[in-house]
């Protein structure tokens, strides 16, 4: 005989648990589509490759393209800018990782890991703080004190290799996956 304190489960108990479980599983199954519909659609995921001609960019200038809805900065660096970027010691950087999609994740943020061809720096123009587009510094109109970019939203500064030098941003500007198709054509994505 069963313990009188714990009566045998009845048919009603069984129906109760079975219905509850079916309901819970069903709700979870319906909830996922409701959540997942917010993710980027297949159309948005498909359009991710960009090809562009960058022959018009003069040394010391940058061109802003659009890639995945974001600004993409292609900067043709002057010898002075390259030298400035190479003279920075790794210890002085806030973010010591290259953040380069073309290299292993732990590659250090030395200039050669930021720009494979020293003259051309290709970075996503999205401040790693909260997403503004940083303003480019030029010899005539300096922005910030590191010669690269200044984000006017909350004051982050980047050097001529696009590495963050003053917060609040905590990461270097991202280098997207890209390749040079010829000396003046580039493919991003």
């Amino acid at each position, binding site marked *: 005989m069963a313990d009188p304190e714990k009566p045998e489960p009845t048919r009603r108990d069984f129906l109760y648990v079975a219905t509850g479980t079916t309901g819970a599983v069903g709700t979870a199954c319906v909830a996922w589509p409701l959540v997942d519909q917010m993710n*980027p*659609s297949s159309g948005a995921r498909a359009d991710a490759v960009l090809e562009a001609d960058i022959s018009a960019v003069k040394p010391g200038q940058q061109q802003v393209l*659009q890639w995945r809805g974001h600004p993409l900065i292609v900067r043709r660096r002057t010898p002075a800018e390259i030298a400035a970027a190479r003279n920075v010691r790794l210890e002085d950087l806030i973010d010591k990782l290259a953040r380069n999609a073309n290299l292993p994740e732990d590659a250090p943020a030395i200039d050669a890991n930021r720009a494979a061809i020293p003259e051309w720096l290709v970075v996503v123009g999205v401040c790693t703080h909260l997403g503004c587009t940083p303003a480019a510094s030029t010899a005539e109109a300096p922005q910030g004190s590191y010669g690269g970019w200044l984000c*006017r939203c909350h004051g982050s500064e980047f050097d001529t290799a696009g590495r963050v030098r003053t917060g609040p941003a905590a990461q270097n500007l991202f280098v997207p996956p890209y390749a040079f198709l010829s000396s003046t054509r580039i493919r991003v994505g």
Partner: protein
Amino acid sequence: MADGQPIYRPKHGLTRWLDSRLPLPRLVYDQFVVYPTPRNLNIWYTFGAMLAFFLAVQIVTGIVLAMHYVADGSLAFASVQNIVREVSYGWLIRSLHATGATMFFVAVYLHLFRGLYYGSYKAPREIVWILGVLIYLAMVATAFLGYVLPWGQMSYWAATVITSLFGSLPLVGDSLTQWLWGGYAVGSPTLTRFYALHTLMPFVICALVALHIWALHVVGNNNPAGIDVAGEQDTLPFHPYFTVKDAFFLSLFVIVYAALVFYAPDALVSPDNSSPANPLVTPAEIQPEWYFLPYYAMLRAIPFKLLGVAVLLGAFISPLFAPWLDSSKVRSCRYRPLMRWFFWGFVAACLTLGYIGSQPVAAVLHLGVASLPLVWVGRCATLYFFAYFWLVMPILGRIEVPDPTPETIAQPVLIKEGAA
């Protein structure tokens, strides 16, 4: 119901019929006609009614705007221009809605500071207070979502910066922001979903307001003296005494509203929002609407991303704990000689943060010979903001000697009347 409150007795056949089926008139009678209200409520107690009024204004004007607005990245900006230039009275409706949001926030801030000053957050009104803070947070969300809809430069970059806040969360940050955006950057899918939510939120607010008033009417109003109602001599029926008082001050407030709508519809709108959204160029100075400036200043005061986000979150939720942080037995600052000063310090800190938020990041304050970077002023004000809740409230109640509180609410009122 309090003793001695008149009982609803429907006089006509129809109202009797209704009363035994859906006693809505009885509810209105009990809660808004004979509802016993402390007789000493002052002007600061009229902002609740104003808030209800502005919620209604936002819903009515919002639905009219929704009839003409198109929530698509390529059409939204033009559709708002169409509302303002072509739709009959569209300029008026749009201005009423945009300025209405401003007046709504003026009212909610005064209402909140009122609650802090008179200790309305303390027992037994904890739930009233918490629901109030939740309403405020829902308003913040609604106004942010609405500000994105005209799809100007400020709309776009406000959306980018605010959604990127979620990107600072460890591990889930990136997928969470892409989920919010529906893409790899703020774009048309983001706009469309923000529109859907902007339309939904006001009705969520309506539900919260109903709970807020319900909870309030269970325990009764606090009052400027901060003492409990002791009996009938302390209260007056809500109608006509407080309906008239609310209506009078509402009419003054609406005059200010009308002045802004007709004479300065763009006074508080950034000129940058007159250019269509451009994902490739951030405007030189980005800035939220005035009612978010204090938070913006806090965000900029912190040089580390994750900490900045944590501080922002803390600023939004700290008020929720006020009922349990404040250790004083006395509610009203009228009888708290020290708290009074800390309260005004808190108001000053919020205003200072608002001012700093409106200035460029690198701005410097010149005080005669010395010069002080504003970001440091912002850091001090941010510290004070938090200290008010987490240090002043718990400690002051233990060391402060409160002034004697009156015996009853009626006493000071009657003494004043006798003297006059």
